[in-house]
Protein backbone atom coordinates (compact mmCIF):
# COMPACT_ATOMS: atom_id res chain seq x y z
CA UNK A 1 0.00 0.00 0.00
CA UNK A 2 1.16 3.49 -0.87
CA UNK A 3 2.34 5.16 2.29
CA UNK A 4 0.56 8.52 2.54
CA UNK A 5 3.19 9.89 4.89
CA UNK A 6 5.89 9.35 2.35
CA UNK A 7 5.88 12.68 0.52
CA UNK A 8 8.49 14.39 2.59
CA UNK A 9 10.84 11.45 2.70
CA UNK A 10 10.53 9.40 -0.44
CA UNK A 11 12.59 9.86 -3.53
CA UNK A 12 11.75 9.54 -7.21
CA UNK A 13 11.83 6.06 -8.69
CA UNK A 14 12.36 7.05 -12.29
CA UNK A 15 13.85 10.30 -13.51
CA UNK A 16 13.80 11.43 -17.13
CA UNK A 17 16.16 14.26 -17.85
CA UNK A 18 15.87 16.19 -21.10
CA UNK A 19 15.23 13.10 -23.20
CA UNK A 20 15.34 13.40 -26.96
CA UNK A 21 15.26 11.05 -29.90
CA UNK A 22 15.72 11.86 -33.55
CA UNK A 23 15.46 9.60 -36.53
CA UNK A 24 17.94 11.24 -38.85
CA UNK A 25 16.83 14.86 -39.06
CA UNK A 26 13.36 13.98 -37.84
CA UNK A 27 12.90 14.71 -34.15
CA UNK A 28 10.52 12.13 -32.65
CA UNK A 29 10.78 13.33 -29.09
CA UNK A 30 12.37 16.43 -27.56
CA UNK A 31 13.22 17.84 -24.16
CA UNK A 32 11.19 15.49 -21.97
CA UNK A 33 11.90 15.71 -18.24
CA UNK A 34 9.88 14.37 -15.34
CA UNK A 35 10.10 12.45 -12.10
CA UNK A 36 7.98 9.45 -11.27
CA UNK A 37 7.51 8.55 -7.62
CA UNK A 38 6.80 5.15 -6.09
CA UNK A 39 3.14 4.27 -6.42
CA UNK A 40 2.46 7.00 -8.93
CA UNK A 41 0.60 6.39 -12.18
CA UNK A 42 1.59 8.66 -15.05
CA UNK A 43 -0.37 8.63 -18.29
CA UNK A 44 1.26 9.83 -21.50
CA UNK A 45 -1.49 10.90 -23.88
CA UNK A 46 -1.41 12.19 -27.40
CA UNK A 47 -2.32 11.07 -30.87
CA UNK A 48 -0.39 8.74 -33.16
CA UNK A 49 2.96 10.23 -34.07
CA UNK A 50 3.07 12.49 -31.00
CA UNK A 51 6.17 10.68 -29.76
CA UNK A 52 4.57 8.92 -26.81
CA UNK A 53 5.61 5.43 -27.86
CA UNK A 54 9.13 6.60 -28.63
CA UNK A 55 9.26 8.08 -25.14
CA UNK A 56 8.03 4.85 -23.56
CA UNK A 57 10.68 2.88 -25.39
CA UNK A 58 13.41 5.21 -24.22
CA UNK A 59 12.19 5.08 -20.63
CA UNK A 60 12.21 1.30 -20.69
CA UNK A 61 15.72 1.16 -22.24
CA UNK A 62 14.49 -0.46 -25.42
CA UNK A 63 15.57 2.55 -27.41
CA UNK A 64 18.69 4.59 -26.89
CA UNK A 65 18.02 8.31 -26.51
CA UNK A 66 19.80 10.71 -28.87
CA UNK A 67 20.25 13.01 -25.90
CA UNK A 68 19.35 13.14 -22.23
CA UNK A 69 19.18 10.35 -19.73
CA UNK A 70 16.90 8.07 -17.74
CA UNK A 71 17.76 7.13 -14.17
CA UNK A 72 16.13 4.52 -11.98
CA UNK A 73 16.32 3.92 -8.26
CA UNK A 74 17.43 0.31 -7.91
CA UNK A 75 16.21 -1.88 -5.05
CA UNK A 76 19.35 -0.95 -3.11
CA UNK A 77 18.12 2.67 -3.06
CA UNK A 78 20.75 4.01 -5.44
CA UNK A 79 19.61 6.12 -8.40
CA UNK A 80 21.47 4.87 -11.47
CA UNK A 81 21.80 6.05 -15.04
CA UNK A 82 20.16 3.29 -17.07
CA UNK A 83 22.52 3.81 -20.01
CA UNK A 84 25.41 2.90 -17.71
CA UNK A 85 23.90 -0.46 -16.74
CA UNK A 86 25.28 -3.55 -18.40
CA UNK A 87 22.97 -5.52 -20.62
CA UNK A 88 22.74 -8.31 -18.06
CA UNK A 89 21.66 -5.85 -15.35
CA UNK A 90 19.14 -4.22 -17.66
CA UNK A 91 17.60 -7.50 -18.63
CA UNK A 92 17.52 -8.59 -15.01
CA UNK A 93 15.71 -5.37 -14.12
CA UNK A 94 13.27 -6.06 -16.91
CA UNK A 95 12.24 -9.44 -15.61
CA UNK A 96 12.22 -8.64 -11.91
CA UNK A 97 11.65 -5.05 -10.85
CA UNK A 98 9.93 -3.91 -14.05
CA UNK A 99 7.00 -5.05 -16.09
CA UNK A 100 6.00 -4.21 -19.63
CA UNK A 101 2.45 -4.73 -20.83
CA UNK A 102 2.26 -4.64 -24.61
CA UNK A 103 -0.79 -3.66 -26.60
CA UNK A 104 -0.44 -6.93 -28.51
CA UNK A 105 -0.35 -9.74 -25.95
CA UNK A 106 1.45 -11.98 -28.45
CA UNK A 107 4.47 -9.74 -27.96
CA UNK A 108 4.44 -10.17 -24.22
CA UNK A 109 3.46 -13.82 -23.94
CA UNK A 110 4.75 -17.15 -25.16
CA UNK A 111 1.71 -18.11 -27.14
CA UNK A 112 2.52 -21.83 -27.41
CA UNK A 113 3.37 -22.33 -23.76
CA UNK A 114 0.75 -22.95 -21.04
CA UNK A 115 -0.62 -20.06 -18.98
CA UNK A 116 0.98 -21.51 -15.84
CA UNK A 117 4.41 -21.58 -17.45
CA UNK A 118 3.90 -18.09 -18.86
CA UNK A 119 3.39 -16.79 -15.35
CA UNK A 120 6.05 -19.06 -13.86
CA UNK A 121 8.77 -18.14 -16.33
CA UNK A 122 9.89 -15.02 -14.51
CA UNK A 123 10.12 -16.99 -11.27
CA UNK A 124 12.19 -19.70 -12.92
CA UNK A 125 14.36 -16.99 -14.43
CA UNK A 126 15.27 -15.76 -10.98
CA UNK A 127 16.11 -19.24 -9.80
CA UNK A 128 12.88 -20.74 -8.43
CA UNK A 129 13.46 -24.46 -8.60
CA UNK A 130 10.41 -26.01 -7.01
CA UNK A 131 7.65 -27.02 -9.38
CA UNK A 132 4.96 -27.10 -6.69
CA UNK A 133 5.73 -23.62 -5.45
CA UNK A 134 5.95 -22.20 -8.97
CA UNK A 135 2.59 -23.70 -9.83
CA UNK A 136 0.97 -22.47 -6.62
CA UNK A 137 2.22 -18.95 -7.22
CA UNK A 138 1.08 -19.05 -10.84
CA UNK A 139 -2.36 -20.25 -9.69
CA UNK A 140 -2.66 -17.41 -7.21
CA UNK A 141 -1.84 -14.89 -9.92
CA UNK A 142 -4.22 -16.40 -12.45
CA UNK A 143 -6.99 -16.07 -9.88
CA UNK A 144 -6.04 -12.50 -9.16
CA UNK A 145 -6.46 -11.65 -12.83
CA UNK A 146 -9.71 -13.63 -12.94
CA UNK A 147 -8.55 -16.54 -15.06
CA UNK A 148 -10.10 -19.84 -14.03
CA UNK A 149 -7.66 -22.47 -12.79
CA UNK A 150 -9.16 -24.95 -15.24
CA UNK A 151 -7.32 -22.94 -17.91
CA UNK A 152 -3.89 -23.03 -16.25
CA UNK A 153 -2.54 -25.68 -18.61
CA UNK A 154 -3.95 -24.12 -21.77
CA UNK A 155 -1.78 -22.04 -24.05
CA UNK A 156 -2.80 -18.39 -24.48
CA UNK A 157 -3.45 -18.93 -28.16
CA UNK A 158 -6.67 -20.63 -27.02
CA UNK A 159 -7.57 -17.53 -24.96
CA UNK A 160 -9.76 -14.56 -25.88
CA UNK A 161 -8.16 -11.13 -26.32
CA UNK A 162 -9.20 -9.95 -22.87
CA UNK A 163 -7.90 -13.10 -21.18
CA UNK A 164 -4.59 -12.84 -22.99
CA UNK A 165 -4.18 -9.31 -21.74
CA UNK A 166 -4.99 -10.35 -18.19
CA UNK A 167 -2.50 -13.21 -18.47
CA UNK A 168 0.13 -10.78 -19.67
CA UNK A 169 -0.50 -8.67 -16.58
CA UNK A 170 -0.16 -11.67 -14.27
CA UNK A 171 3.07 -12.69 -16.00
CA UNK A 172 4.46 -9.23 -15.36
CA UNK A 173 3.34 -8.86 -11.76
CA UNK A 174 4.46 -12.23 -10.43
CA UNK A 175 7.90 -10.96 -9.42
CA UNK A 176 6.41 -7.94 -7.57
CA UNK A 177 7.84 -5.27 -9.84
CA UNK A 178 7.88 -1.69 -8.60
CA UNK A 179 7.46 -0.13 -12.04
CA UNK A 180 5.26 -1.26 -14.92
CA UNK A 181 5.23 0.23 -18.39
CA UNK A 182 2.01 -0.15 -20.36
CA UNK A 183 1.60 0.56 -24.03
CA UNK A 184 -2.09 1.00 -24.89
CA UNK A 185 -3.04 -1.99 -22.73
CA UNK A 186 -6.72 -1.76 -23.64
CA UNK A 187 -6.23 -1.03 -27.33
CA UNK A 188 -8.02 -3.40 -29.65
CA UNK A 189 -10.39 -4.76 -27.00
CA UNK A 190 -14.19 -4.56 -26.98
CA UNK A 191 -15.55 -1.79 -24.78
CA UNK A 192 -16.98 -4.18 -22.18
CA UNK A 193 -13.74 -6.17 -22.08
CA UNK A 194 -11.84 -2.89 -21.75
CA UNK A 195 -13.92 -1.84 -18.75
CA UNK A 196 -13.22 -5.09 -16.95
CA UNK A 197 -9.49 -4.87 -17.66
CA UNK A 198 -9.28 -1.25 -16.53
CA UNK A 199 -11.09 -2.05 -13.35
CA UNK A 200 -8.74 -4.95 -12.67
CA UNK A 201 -5.69 -2.84 -13.40
CA UNK A 202 -6.94 -0.06 -11.19
CA UNK A 203 -7.39 -2.44 -8.28
CA UNK A 204 -4.01 -4.11 -8.70
CA UNK A 205 -2.15 -0.83 -9.10
CA UNK A 206 -3.61 0.58 -5.86
CA UNK A 207 -3.26 -2.65 -3.94
CA UNK A 208 0.36 -3.24 -4.94
CA UNK A 209 1.39 0.41 -4.88
CA UNK A 210 2.78 0.10 -8.38
CA UNK A 211 4.38 2.96 -10.22
CA UNK A 212 3.07 2.93 -13.78
CA UNK A 213 3.88 4.76 -16.98
CA UNK A 214 0.97 4.16 -19.31
CA UNK A 215 0.80 5.31 -22.90
CA UNK A 216 -2.72 5.76 -24.20
CA UNK A 217 -4.65 7.82 -26.69
CA UNK A 218 -7.80 7.19 -24.68
CA UNK A 219 -8.45 9.97 -22.17
CA UNK A 220 -11.00 7.83 -20.33
CA UNK A 221 -8.25 5.32 -19.61
CA UNK A 222 -6.01 8.10 -18.37
CA UNK A 223 -8.77 9.43 -16.11
CA UNK A 224 -9.57 6.08 -14.61
CA UNK A 225 -6.01 4.90 -13.98
CA UNK A 226 -3.62 7.79 -13.68
CA UNK A 227 -2.74 10.37 -11.07
CA UNK A 228 -0.90 12.59 -13.51
CA UNK A 229 -0.92 13.10 -17.26
CA UNK A 230 1.57 14.38 -19.77
CA UNK A 231 0.06 15.57 -23.03
CA UNK A 232 2.37 15.15 -26.00
CA UNK A 233 2.23 16.77 -29.39
CA UNK A 234 4.87 16.79 -32.09
CA UNK A 235 7.42 15.09 -29.86
CA UNK A 236 7.09 17.59 -27.01
CA UNK A 237 5.27 17.58 -23.71
CA UNK A 238 2.89 20.50 -24.06
CA UNK A 239 0.95 20.18 -20.84
CA UNK A 240 1.32 18.22 -17.65
CA UNK A 241 -0.40 18.07 -14.30
CA UNK A 242 -2.87 16.28 -12.12
CA UNK A 243 -5.08 14.12 -14.32
CA UNK A 244 -8.44 15.63 -13.39
CA UNK A 245 -6.92 19.11 -13.54
CA UNK A 246 -5.62 18.66 -17.06
CA UNK A 247 -8.80 16.99 -18.27
CA UNK A 248 -11.27 19.32 -16.52
CA UNK A 249 -9.30 22.54 -16.91
CA UNK A 250 -7.12 22.05 -19.98
CA UNK A 251 -4.95 25.03 -20.87
CA UNK A 252 -3.27 24.31 -24.14
CA UNK A 253 -5.21 24.54 -27.41
CA UNK A 254 -4.27 20.99 -28.33
CA UNK A 255 -5.35 19.59 -24.95
CA UNK A 256 -8.64 21.45 -25.21
CA UNK A 257 -9.10 19.91 -28.62
CA UNK A 258 -8.35 16.43 -27.29
CA UNK A 259 -10.73 16.83 -24.36
CA UNK A 260 -13.50 18.21 -26.53
CA UNK A 261 -13.06 15.40 -29.03
CA UNK A 262 -14.31 12.75 -26.64
CA UNK A 263 -17.54 11.26 -27.87
CA UNK A 264 -20.17 11.28 -25.15
CA UNK A 265 -21.02 7.74 -24.08
Amino acid at each position, binding site marked *: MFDPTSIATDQPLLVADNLAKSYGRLPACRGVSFKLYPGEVLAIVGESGSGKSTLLQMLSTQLQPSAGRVSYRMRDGVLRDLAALGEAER*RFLFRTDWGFVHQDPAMGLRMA*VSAGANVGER*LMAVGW*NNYGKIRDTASTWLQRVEIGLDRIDDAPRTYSGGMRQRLQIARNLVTSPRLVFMDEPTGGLDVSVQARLLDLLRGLVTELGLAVVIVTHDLAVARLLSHRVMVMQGGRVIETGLTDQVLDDPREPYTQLLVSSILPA
Partner: protein
Amino acid sequence: MNAPSYNFAYLDEQTKRMIRRAILKAIAIPGYQVPFASREMPMPYGWGTGGVQVTAAILGPSDVLKVIDQGSDDTTNAISIRKFFAKTAGVATTTRTDEASVIQTRHRIPEAPLHEGQVLVYQVPIPEPLRFLEPRETETRRMHALAEYGLMHVKLYEDIAKFGHIATAYAYPVKVAGRYVMDPSPTPKFDNPKMDNCPALQLFGAGREKRIYAVPPYTEVVSLDFEDHPFTRYRQNAPCALCGAEDSYLDEIVTDDKGGRMFVCSDTDYCETRRAEGHFGSANAPETERADV
Protein backbone atom coordinates in the same frame (compact mmCIF):
# COMPACT_ATOMS: atom_id res chain seq x y z
CA MET B 1 42.09 -49.50 -50.73
CA ASN B 2 43.11 -45.94 -49.93
CA ALA B 3 42.14 -43.95 -53.00
CA PRO B 4 45.01 -41.57 -53.79
CA SER B 5 42.71 -38.88 -55.11
CA TYR B 6 41.45 -38.09 -51.58
CA ASN B 7 43.35 -36.14 -48.97
CA PHE B 8 43.72 -38.01 -45.65
CA ALA B 9 40.25 -38.33 -44.08
CA TYR B 10 38.59 -36.70 -47.11
CA LEU B 11 38.74 -33.04 -45.97
CA ASP B 12 41.57 -30.76 -47.12
CA GLU B 13 44.12 -29.70 -44.52
CA GLN B 14 42.95 -26.08 -44.31
CA THR B 15 39.41 -27.18 -43.56
CA LYS B 16 40.61 -29.57 -40.89
CA ARG B 17 42.65 -26.78 -39.30
CA MET B 18 39.61 -24.56 -39.29
CA ILE B 19 37.56 -27.27 -37.60
CA ARG B 20 40.33 -27.98 -35.09
CA ARG B 21 40.41 -24.32 -34.15
CA ALA B 22 36.68 -24.47 -33.50
CA ILE B 23 37.16 -27.64 -31.45
CA LEU B 24 39.88 -26.03 -29.36
CA LYS B 25 37.68 -23.07 -28.65
CA ALA B 26 34.81 -25.41 -27.78
CA ILE B 27 37.01 -27.29 -25.32
CA ALA B 28 38.14 -24.01 -23.79
CA ILE B 29 34.50 -22.94 -23.21
CA PRO B 30 32.70 -26.14 -22.20
CA GLY B 31 29.16 -26.34 -23.53
CA TYR B 32 29.43 -23.20 -25.67
CA GLN B 33 28.34 -23.60 -29.29
CA VAL B 34 31.19 -22.50 -31.56
CA PRO B 35 30.18 -21.61 -35.12
CA PHE B 36 32.25 -23.25 -37.85
CA ALA B 37 32.25 -23.26 -41.63
CA SER B 38 30.58 -26.60 -42.13
CA ARG B 39 31.47 -28.21 -45.49
CA GLU B 40 29.37 -30.16 -47.90
CA MET B 41 30.02 -33.84 -47.23
CA PRO B 42 29.31 -36.75 -49.55
CA MET B 43 26.23 -37.70 -47.57
CA PRO B 44 22.95 -36.00 -46.79
CA TYR B 45 22.40 -33.71 -43.82
CA GLY B 46 20.96 -35.73 -41.00
CA TRP B 47 23.30 -38.62 -41.67
CA GLY B 48 25.99 -37.26 -39.41
CA THR B 49 27.78 -34.63 -41.48
CA GLY B 50 28.71 -32.70 -38.34
CA GLY B 51 30.12 -35.73 -36.57
CA VAL B 52 31.97 -36.84 -39.69
CA GLN B 53 33.68 -33.47 -40.06
CA VAL B 54 34.77 -33.47 -36.41
CA THR B 55 36.03 -37.04 -36.75
CA ALA B 56 37.88 -36.16 -39.97
CA ALA B 57 39.56 -33.23 -38.25
CA ILE B 58 40.85 -35.20 -35.26
CA LEU B 59 41.65 -38.53 -36.87
CA GLY B 60 45.34 -39.55 -37.16
CA PRO B 61 46.79 -42.57 -38.95
CA SER B 62 47.24 -44.53 -35.71
CA ASP B 63 43.68 -44.02 -34.48
CA VAL B 64 41.22 -46.86 -34.15
CA LEU B 65 37.69 -45.83 -35.11
CA LYS B 66 34.38 -47.19 -33.88
CA VAL B 67 31.07 -45.90 -35.24
CA ILE B 68 27.70 -46.56 -33.64
CA ASP B 69 24.18 -45.64 -34.58
CA GLN B 70 21.70 -45.91 -31.69
CA GLY B 71 24.27 -48.08 -29.94
CA SER B 72 24.63 -50.46 -32.85
CA ASP B 73 27.79 -51.04 -34.88
CA ASP B 74 26.00 -52.76 -37.72
CA THR B 75 23.33 -50.44 -39.04
CA THR B 76 23.65 -48.90 -42.50
CA ASN B 77 24.66 -45.50 -41.21
CA ALA B 78 27.33 -46.84 -38.86
CA ILE B 79 28.77 -49.15 -41.46
CA SER B 80 28.91 -46.55 -44.20
CA ILE B 81 30.66 -43.97 -42.01
CA ARG B 82 33.11 -46.62 -40.79
CA LYS B 83 33.83 -47.61 -44.40
CA PHE B 84 34.13 -43.98 -45.41
CA PHE B 85 37.02 -43.42 -43.04
CA ALA B 86 38.59 -46.80 -43.70
CA LYS B 87 38.67 -45.76 -47.34
CA THR B 88 39.65 -42.09 -47.07
CA ALA B 89 41.98 -42.29 -44.07
CA GLY B 90 43.00 -45.90 -44.05
CA VAL B 91 42.57 -46.08 -40.28
CA ALA B 92 41.87 -49.27 -38.38
CA THR B 93 38.26 -49.75 -37.33
CA THR B 94 36.73 -51.76 -34.54
CA THR B 95 33.41 -52.50 -32.89
CA ARG B 96 34.99 -52.85 -29.46
CA THR B 97 34.45 -49.83 -27.22
CA ASP B 98 37.59 -50.38 -25.16
CA GLU B 99 39.81 -50.75 -28.24
CA ALA B 100 38.65 -47.60 -30.01
CA SER B 101 40.46 -44.27 -29.69
CA VAL B 102 37.74 -42.33 -31.53
CA ILE B 103 34.07 -43.29 -31.29
CA GLN B 104 31.57 -41.50 -33.48
CA THR B 105 28.05 -41.91 -32.20
CA ARG B 106 24.53 -41.19 -33.15
CA HIS B 107 22.25 -40.98 -30.10
CA ARG B 108 23.98 -43.29 -27.61
CA ILE B 109 26.89 -43.42 -25.21
CA PRO B 110 28.47 -46.89 -24.99
CA GLU B 111 27.68 -48.91 -21.87
CA ALA B 112 31.32 -49.84 -21.24
CA PRO B 113 33.03 -47.08 -19.27
CA LEU B 114 35.11 -44.78 -21.45
CA HIS B 115 38.70 -44.13 -20.50
CA GLU B 116 41.24 -41.38 -20.76
CA GLY B 117 42.56 -40.75 -24.23
CA GLN B 118 39.32 -41.68 -25.93
CA VAL B 119 37.24 -39.16 -27.88
CA LEU B 120 33.48 -39.52 -28.24
CA VAL B 121 32.14 -37.64 -31.26
CA TYR B 122 28.38 -36.98 -31.25
CA GLN B 123 26.32 -36.31 -34.34
CA VAL B 124 23.95 -33.47 -33.49
CA PRO B 125 20.84 -32.53 -35.45
CA ILE B 126 19.77 -29.41 -33.44
CA PRO B 127 22.41 -27.95 -31.13
CA GLU B 128 20.29 -25.22 -29.56
CA PRO B 129 18.42 -26.43 -26.46
CA LEU B 130 16.38 -23.21 -26.25
CA ARG B 131 15.23 -23.39 -29.87
CA PHE B 132 11.76 -24.81 -29.35
CA LEU B 133 10.72 -22.12 -26.90
CA GLU B 134 12.66 -19.20 -28.35
CA PRO B 135 13.02 -19.43 -32.12
CA ARG B 136 15.08 -16.24 -32.49
CA GLU B 137 18.74 -17.18 -32.73
CA THR B 138 19.79 -13.62 -31.79
CA GLU B 139 17.78 -13.98 -28.59
CA THR B 140 19.01 -17.48 -27.67
CA ARG B 141 22.62 -16.40 -28.11
CA ARG B 142 22.02 -13.49 -25.80
CA MET B 143 20.39 -15.80 -23.29
CA HIS B 144 23.45 -18.07 -23.34
CA ALA B 145 25.76 -15.07 -23.05
CA LEU B 146 23.91 -13.82 -19.98
CA ALA B 147 23.18 -17.30 -18.59
CA GLU B 148 19.43 -16.60 -18.62
CA TYR B 149 18.18 -20.13 -18.47
CA GLY B 150 14.73 -19.75 -16.93
CA LEU B 151 13.26 -20.79 -20.25
CA MET B 152 14.82 -24.25 -20.00
CA HIS B 153 12.83 -24.88 -16.86
CA VAL B 154 9.70 -23.68 -18.66
CA LYS B 155 10.09 -26.70 -20.90
CA LEU B 156 10.39 -29.04 -17.93
CA TYR B 157 7.45 -27.27 -16.23
CA GLU B 158 5.33 -27.93 -19.30
CA ASP B 159 6.22 -31.61 -19.13
CA ILE B 160 5.15 -31.93 -15.52
CA ALA B 161 1.99 -29.88 -16.11
CA LYS B 162 1.03 -32.14 -19.01
CA PHE B 163 2.23 -35.57 -17.93
CA GLY B 164 2.72 -35.31 -14.17
CA HIS B 165 6.46 -35.91 -14.50
CA ILE B 166 9.34 -34.74 -16.64
CA ALA B 167 8.52 -36.66 -19.79
CA THR B 168 11.49 -35.48 -21.82
CA ALA B 169 13.17 -38.82 -22.50
CA TYR B 170 15.95 -37.81 -24.86
CA ALA B 171 17.89 -34.63 -25.65
CA TYR B 172 17.46 -33.91 -21.97
CA PRO B 173 19.11 -30.55 -21.25
CA VAL B 174 22.23 -30.39 -19.12
CA LYS B 175 24.33 -27.65 -17.57
CA VAL B 176 28.03 -27.97 -18.30
CA ALA B 177 30.69 -26.87 -15.81
CA GLY B 178 28.09 -24.77 -14.02
CA ARG B 179 27.75 -22.34 -16.91
CA TYR B 180 26.31 -23.24 -20.33
CA VAL B 181 23.12 -25.19 -20.86
CA MET B 182 23.67 -27.75 -23.59
CA ASP B 183 21.65 -30.14 -25.67
CA PRO B 184 23.36 -33.52 -25.31
CA SER B 185 22.04 -34.48 -28.78
CA PRO B 186 19.15 -36.94 -28.91
CA THR B 187 20.71 -39.50 -26.57
CA PRO B 188 18.26 -41.10 -24.16
CA LYS B 189 18.35 -39.40 -20.79
CA PHE B 190 19.52 -42.79 -19.47
CA ASP B 191 22.94 -41.81 -20.83
CA ASN B 192 23.07 -38.33 -19.24
CA PRO B 193 24.87 -39.42 -16.05
CA LYS B 194 27.62 -40.97 -18.16
CA MET B 195 28.53 -37.52 -19.47
CA ASP B 196 29.29 -36.25 -16.00
CA ASN B 197 32.94 -36.36 -14.98
CA CYS B 198 33.71 -38.61 -17.95
CA PRO B 199 37.43 -39.44 -18.50
CA ALA B 200 37.00 -39.22 -22.30
CA LEU B 201 36.78 -36.03 -24.36
CA GLN B 202 33.26 -35.45 -25.75
CA LEU B 203 32.87 -33.47 -28.98
CA PHE B 204 29.61 -32.51 -30.63
CA GLY B 205 29.24 -31.62 -34.31
CA ALA B 206 26.13 -30.20 -35.99
CA GLY B 207 26.74 -30.05 -39.77
CA ARG B 208 23.56 -28.46 -40.97
CA GLU B 209 23.57 -25.90 -38.16
CA LYS B 210 27.34 -25.33 -38.37
CA ARG B 211 28.07 -25.61 -34.66
CA ILE B 212 30.67 -27.49 -32.63
CA TYR B 213 30.65 -27.82 -28.86
CA ALA B 214 32.53 -29.89 -26.35
CA VAL B 215 32.72 -31.35 -22.86
CA PRO B 216 36.38 -31.72 -21.79
CA PRO B 217 37.37 -34.78 -19.74
CA TYR B 218 36.34 -34.76 -16.09
CA THR B 219 33.84 -31.95 -16.46
CA GLU B 220 30.69 -31.59 -14.38
CA VAL B 221 27.55 -32.23 -16.42
CA VAL B 222 24.29 -31.80 -14.49
CA SER B 223 20.85 -32.66 -15.81
CA LEU B 224 18.36 -29.85 -15.15
CA ASP B 225 15.43 -30.60 -12.89
CA PHE B 226 13.19 -29.29 -10.09
CA GLU B 227 13.72 -29.86 -6.37
CA ASP B 228 10.42 -31.67 -6.14
CA HIS B 229 10.79 -33.43 -9.51
CA PRO B 230 14.41 -34.56 -9.58
CA PHE B 231 16.10 -36.00 -12.66
CA THR B 232 15.66 -39.74 -13.03
CA ARG B 233 17.17 -42.19 -15.50
CA TYR B 234 14.71 -44.23 -17.43
CA ARG B 235 15.15 -47.84 -18.48
CA GLN B 236 12.68 -50.52 -19.57
CA ASN B 237 12.13 -52.74 -16.58
CA ALA B 238 13.52 -55.96 -18.03
CA PRO B 239 16.83 -57.79 -18.47
CA CYS B 240 18.32 -58.06 -21.95
CA ALA B 241 16.82 -61.08 -23.67
CA LEU B 242 20.20 -61.99 -25.16
CA CYS B 243 22.77 -61.29 -22.45
CA GLY B 244 20.64 -60.87 -19.33
CA ALA B 245 22.10 -57.45 -18.53
CA GLU B 246 20.05 -55.52 -16.02
CA ASP B 247 21.98 -52.27 -16.24
CA SER B 248 22.00 -51.51 -19.97
CA TYR B 249 19.73 -49.36 -22.12
CA LEU B 250 17.30 -51.60 -24.01
CA ASP B 251 15.75 -51.54 -27.46
CA GLU B 252 12.31 -53.03 -27.90
CA ILE B 253 12.18 -55.47 -30.80
CA VAL B 254 8.86 -56.56 -32.24
CA THR B 255 9.18 -60.24 -33.06
CA ASP B 256 5.90 -61.08 -34.77
CA ASP B 257 2.57 -59.51 -35.67
CA LYS B 258 0.81 -60.93 -32.62
CA GLY B 259 2.26 -58.53 -30.10
CA GLY B 260 5.38 -60.57 -29.43
CA ARG B 261 8.40 -58.50 -28.46
CA MET B 262 11.73 -58.71 -26.76
CA PHE B 263 14.09 -56.28 -25.08
CA VAL B 264 17.74 -56.39 -26.05
CA CYS B 265 20.75 -54.20 -25.32
CA SER B 266 20.92 -51.21 -27.62
CA ASP B 267 24.73 -51.33 -27.33
CA THR B 268 25.60 -54.33 -29.56
CA ASP B 269 29.25 -54.43 -28.50
CA TYR B 270 28.31 -54.54 -24.82
CA CYS B 271 25.83 -57.32 -25.46
CA GLU B 272 28.24 -59.39 -27.54
CA THR B 273 31.04 -58.95 -25.04
CA ARG B 274 28.81 -60.15 -22.22
CA ARG B 275 27.64 -63.16 -24.23
CA ALA B 276 31.22 -64.03 -25.03
CA GLU B 277 31.83 -63.99 -21.27
CA GLY B 278 29.07 -66.56 -20.84
CA HIS B 279 26.10 -64.42 -19.87
CA PHE B 280 22.79 -65.23 -21.47
CA GLY B 281 19.20 -64.06 -21.43
CA SER B 282 15.76 -65.62 -21.79
CA ALA B 283 15.96 -65.86 -25.59
CA ASN B 284 19.16 -67.90 -25.75
CA ALA B 285 19.30 -69.68 -22.41
CA PRO B 286 20.97 -73.15 -22.44
CA GLU B 287 18.50 -76.03 -22.88
CA THR B 288 18.62 -77.11 -19.25
CA GLU B 289 17.45 -73.76 -17.99
CA ARG B 290 15.05 -72.91 -20.78
CA ALA B 291 12.55 -75.35 -19.34
CA ASP B 292 12.12 -73.07 -16.38
CA VAL B 293 11.24 -70.04 -18.40
